[in-house]
């Protein structure tokens, strides 16, 4: 028996425009007082006229282009009709026949994931369930109603939970590079709904498909991964038990319970969904010219994959370092800002080591964002110069780059006052070497038989220098003095 999961992903992304999609209400809703950002349009009052937000349309096209989509130069909105308390008009304005962007793809490692569409729509209000007057009630806040939402629909090309997660991470990175949304799954500005079933080739060579399941309410990336894993196992067991296979009508919706780590059947809709879409009569169609699309394309910044390749090629960063930095757009901004200060070809690698080492540790400990701390490029440059001269150790560099977050911290003065400069002066080190050799004739003989035993002599040299000797240079000079004697 061979089991292959077939997974498609729907992702909804809330754009961070200032105003809503079809009205001029403030689009921010996180922690805002309930129902303070509403107007006749987003409350669905009769006679209100929706007018599309041009920036939101442009950003949808921009995302489409970044996802290798074709752009429909002629597009229009449609009404998707259904009743739900968080949808005040009784319909959602969305796109069906002519979305802004169609037929794209994302390459994840060696997997080619086709993207069916990236279309524009509006968000619904937000419901919360509570008890009022001893009765179970639902409270609605319409601040989110009408916030611009882009829905990105993949084809069912994903074959496992790990690829699904990678696809979402890549989508999230691209969206953040474009600066069109925070794409924060925990905060709800990005929402993911996997649809999954299994292809099973039975031992007698028969191919069957299990019924489609759409999973809702997954509020984290690891949740998406776990929900898919759970569903793969559940569907296989279910099929082995019941033998039920996919039909045109037996798709179900399951919720993800993040506490029990399992999916559960949500109320099955009676009959298949019937949204009776029709073109939105209140919004005239939109036409984008080739020039407009070209201009949008030109505004797309260097995207993660291209940036990573450039970091490897131009800065000789390792694949790992380049990947880690380019994973986070803000880190790339900080990194590029710092490396601009020096033309030395070794500088970017030096900066990368510090950003991914002590700076990252510091930011994680303090739970800060890397762009929130003061990383002064000139301080990186000072530490780099001193390291290149061999005057300070890497331990000091790592410590000082954190202390230097304080703008008042003076690197050179502190190195001086704390006596942290390494002795890299050759004649001083030769003097130390001579003392060590004179005091340890046996160790010198040992070294001449076994060059690996130099460590003891280096240790002795470090000791008499009070720990100040540059260890790399100390080794070179000891080797030289023992083998060749003083000049």
């Amino acid at each position, binding site marked *: 028996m061979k089991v292959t999961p077939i997974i498609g992903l729907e992702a909804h992304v809330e754009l961070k425009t200032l105003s809503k999609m079809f009205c*001029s209400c403030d689009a921010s809703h996180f922690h805002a007082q309930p129902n303070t950002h509403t107007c006749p349009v987003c409350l669905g009052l009769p006679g209100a006229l929706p007018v599309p937000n041009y920036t939101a349309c442009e950003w949808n096209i921009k995302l489409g282009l970044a996802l290798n989509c074709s752009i429909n130069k002629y597009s229009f909105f449609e009404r998707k009709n259904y009743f*739900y*308390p968080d949808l005040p008009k009784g319909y959602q304005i969305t796109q069906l026949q002519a979305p802004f962007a169609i037929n794209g793809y994302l390459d994840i490692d060696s997997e080619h994931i086709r993207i069916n569409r990236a279309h524009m729509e509006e968000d619904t209000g937000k419901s919360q369930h509570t008890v009022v007057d001893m009765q179970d009630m639902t409270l609605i806040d319409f601040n989110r109603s009408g916030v611009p939402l882009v829905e990105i629909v993949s084809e069912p090309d994903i074959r496992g939970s790990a690829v699904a997660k990678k696809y979402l991470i890549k989508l999230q990175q691209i969206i953040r590079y474009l600066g069109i949304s925070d794409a924060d799954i925990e905060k709800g500005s990005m929402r993911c709904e996997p649809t999954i079933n299994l292809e099973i080739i039975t031992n007698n060579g028969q191919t069957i498909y299990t019924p489609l399941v759409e999973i809702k309410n997954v509020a984290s990336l690891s949740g998406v991964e776990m929900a898919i894993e759970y569903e793969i196992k559940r569907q296989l067991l279910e099929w082995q038990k019941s033998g039920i296979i996919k039909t045109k009508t037996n798709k179900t919706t399951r919720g993800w319970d993040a506490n029990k780590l399992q999916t559960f059947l949500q109320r099955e809709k009676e009959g298949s969904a019937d949204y*009776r879409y029709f073109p939105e009569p209140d919004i*005239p169609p939109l036409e984008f010219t080739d020039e407009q699309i070209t201009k949008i394309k030109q505004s797309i910044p260097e995207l993660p994959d291209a940036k990573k390749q450039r970091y490897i090629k131009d800065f000789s960063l390792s694949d790992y370092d380049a990947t880690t930095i380019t994973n986070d757009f803000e880190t790339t901004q900080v990194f590029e800002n710092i490396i601009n200060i020096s033309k030395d070809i070794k500088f970017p690698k030096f900066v990368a080591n510090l950003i991914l080492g002590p700076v990252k540790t510091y930011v994680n400990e303090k739970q800060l964002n890397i762009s929130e701390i003061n990383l002064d490029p000139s301080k990186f440059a000072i530490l780099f110069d001193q390291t290149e001269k061999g005057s300070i150790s890497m331990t000091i560099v790592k410590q000082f780059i954190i202390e230097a977050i304080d703008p008042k911290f003076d690197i050179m003065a502190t190195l001086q006052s704390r006596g942290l400069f390494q002795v890299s002066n050759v004649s001083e080190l030769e003097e130390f070497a001579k003392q060590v050799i004179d005091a340890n004739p046996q160790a010198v003989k040992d070294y001449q038989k076994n060059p690996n035993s130099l460590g003891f002599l280096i240790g002795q040299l470090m000791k008499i220098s009070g720990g100040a000797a540059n260890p790399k240079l100390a080794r070179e000079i000891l080797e030289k003095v023992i083998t060749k004697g003083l000049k």
Partner: protein
Amino acid sequence: MQQKISLVELQHLSKLARLKLTSLEEQTYLPQIESVLEYMDILNETDTTSIEPLTQITGLKNITRNDEIKPSLDRSNALSSASKTTNGFVVVPNTIKK
């Protein structure tokens, strides 16, 4: 004559539109909808082969607005037509079926 709309279809439509029809109302509306659909048949006789499909009739295009915030409604005003509110929220019957 073949029926254009069955009782089952009418019941499906009324459910989608959140209308609770009595059987008497169903019997009243069924022939009415039937006659509307028959009228569509007359329209269908028009030859439209050389006519592009239309999704709107105003002849306008590219009506958009700039991304600018304008003041929203005062909350008490915004909530004034809600049948029940609490702490600035609109209250509706529980939407989660247990």
